[in-house]
């Protein structure tokens, strides 16, 4: 009955509701991570040596690689949106596929990193963990969960793009894209915080 009425009109802000809601949700995600970063800042100052020693044990080369992978997948994500809007389904399929692949690549590298840590007896919260590794697993873990959560709809879109008319909802991809860039964005902060800010002498002394 509402179709005849003027109730269901264009969004007043000209921003599609899904997109606006995604931005609001990302604001909330930002605050979620800011809780972790806040705690990180506070506790790092009280435990400088522990954080230095822990950070020195991380593999910054793998992490740099992962940064490249995520940046790349951000690019392919943006490109896939562009091509879907241009109704170019094949290119869309290619790029959304590449993005998903990027997600996989990221997780694989992450897994290599984690298993090396487990191998060295570093688990979150076992008796001999250090506070630094609690943060390491907390932040990268939640980030990885976000990566996985993004890959699920992404994979779905990839498979849908094989159907006859291709994937039909550009705005959904755009919304997902916002999310994916956010995941990238969080990594941009996590990377230097965990891997790069090492005090040199602690790195030597601590291990």
């Amino acid at each position, binding site marked *: *009955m*509402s179709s005849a*009425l*003027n*109730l*269901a*009109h264009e*969004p*007043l*802000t000209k*921003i599609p*509701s*899904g997109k*606006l*809601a995604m931005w*609001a*949700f990302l*604001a*909330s*995600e*930002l*605050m*979620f*991570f*800011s*809780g*972790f970063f*806040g*705690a990180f800042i*506070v*506790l790092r100052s*009280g*435990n400088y040596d*522990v954080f230095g020693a822990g950070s020195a044990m991380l593999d910054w080369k793998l992490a740099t690689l992962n940064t490249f992978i995520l940046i790349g997948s951000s690019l392919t994500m943006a490109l896939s949106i562009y091509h879907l809007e241009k109704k170019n389904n094949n290119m869309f399929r290619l790029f959304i596929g590449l993005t998903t692949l990027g997600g996989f690549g990221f997780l694989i590298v992450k897994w290599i990193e984690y298993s090396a840590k487990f191998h060295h007896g570093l688990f*979150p*919260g*076992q*008796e*001999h*963990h*250090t*506070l*630094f590794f*609690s*943060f390491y697993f*907390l932040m990268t873990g*939640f980030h990885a969960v976000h990566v996985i959560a993004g890959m699920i709809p992404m994979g779905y879109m990839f498979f849908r793009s094989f159907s006859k008319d291709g994937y039909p909802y550009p705005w959904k991809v755009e919304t997902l894209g916002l999310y994916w860039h956010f995941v990238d964005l969080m990594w941009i902060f996590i990377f230097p915080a965990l891997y790069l800010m090492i005090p040199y002498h602690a790195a030597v002394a601590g291990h």
Partner: protein
Amino acid sequence: MNTTAAALGVHADHVGANEHAHEHHHELPWYRKYLFSTDHKVIAKQFMISSFFFLFVGGMFALFIRWQLAYPGQPIPVIGHILPDTWVTEPGSGVITPEFYAQLLSMHGTVMVFLVIIPFATGMFGNFCIPLMLGTDDMALPRLNMWSFWLLPPGGLIMFAGFFTQTGYAGAGWTSYPPLSALTQFPVFTITGQTLWLIAVFLIGFSSILGAVNYVTTILNKRAKGMGLFDMPLTVWALFITAIMVTLGTPVLASGLAMLFFDNFLHTSFFLPDHLVSATGHGFEVGTGQPILFQHVFWFYSHPAVYIMILPLMGVVSDVLSVFSRKPVYGYKAMVFSLVGIATLGFIVWGHHMFQSGMNPLLGTTFMLSTIVIAVPSSIKTFNWLGTIWRGNIHFSAALLSALSFVSMFIIGGLSGIFMASAPVDIFIHDTYFIVAHIHYVLFGGSLFGIFAGIYYWYPKMFGKMLSETWAKRHVFWSFVFFNGTFFPMHVLGVGGHMRRIYDPNVYDFLKGMQPMNEFITVCAIGLGFTQLILVGNIIYHIKYGKKAPRNPWNANTLEWAAPAHPGHGNFDRDITVYRGPYEYSVPGRELDYWPQWEPGKSISVHHHTVAVD
């Protein structure tokens, strides 16, 4: 013809008389209609039912607490012997144990805050009022809306599942300060009541974030034609500000809960210092966490949360007062700006809960000043409410009486907040019953009476039936009386130094003289609990047997009253265009004392008066 009907507005009640014809458009299976519905009105009712259920549970917990305080060492009547003889009651006696007492008060606080007031205030009113008052067909993202409800019952269930763990419910207070909430005598990967509590609150928080995201989007994107932001009723404004606070505040709590969860479940040490000594705990050597950090994170959310719990009701009360005084809200813009002010300041005052916590006293000074400043927007609101009824033509309906109870109880609760806001005064009254009195004056006397007002006001639109005004007034009256009997004396206990969260005050010599007062409180509390049965009975009985409600029973202006008496999916049966603000009551030059927003007509504003022109 459509336009004339619209123009006639509420006079066209007969237009809506057979509106139910519309509902049978496309029949949905029952579970899509009642359970997994995406209709905001159904979701609002779901929130209402679950909140009432949890109110009952939380209230029962409160009565157990009260029994123990008034009659320590005596078995709980009736129920005492049903309860298991483990950590719940002393074997064979039916007397609750200290452990169980701690769990009761923790669960009471948590349930009331997270499962009663927040779902009532944002979940129920948010869902019901926003689309209807904006004159639109539904939320911007109906499916998301459904999810925001369906995360709540699992959250509640998980929390209550704590009862079946080895140690029972979470027992560290609703604030769950570590190390208490992180230390367990069990190895890693053991699930305790506290673990479940953390998961549950996390889920509930997620539920309110999803809801809030939706509200923000809907309010920005889906207002009826012609409706600017400053044509929105204050209820919607309040819900809008609240939703923003939820979006920005709740995730911070979630991050704190996540860290606490790892401390509790995996024995990390975010909030645990090194070398803790306890018979059961685990000491760390590597890295020093900080217990106070959790308090910062917790109150960064939970102070805004107390405003999350009251702002929507402030909006509701403004609407109700205006409608039943037949007068515009005094200082509409000031009301909006004070909402914004409360919300903004609300994010920088959290430290007032931590004056005695051992954070740097310099911060105590800053937080004291900011806290005192936040009372200013609250006083603006109070005076504007008084201004609203000033020179009105007050109809004493149950909704108005509840709203006035809200205002008066909020004043008392707010004034007791001023004592605590002064850090040196807080030294003595912190963690005493003075605080408990404050909590209940603002949360029960404030929020819950606001919720009563909202229910009495919107019931006709929710269920298409009228409530019994007589019984409603009885309920409000007795609630008011028993409420004050229960919670006013708590101020006195607090001044006497009576600590909160203690199982048996008689351990202390200086508290011994207060036993009679505790008994008086308990008797009133029982009365208060039973009085709520009137409300529930009234609601349930009149869903079926109530008089059919007209479209606009209160002769109100806002858009929900343009909808059919019992709106179906899609809400409206007419085009909605908004011509003026929501509060044009008693406009000179008009015969009727109200002027709905959807009714065309011109007016001018002369010296703060509105005058109709033809």
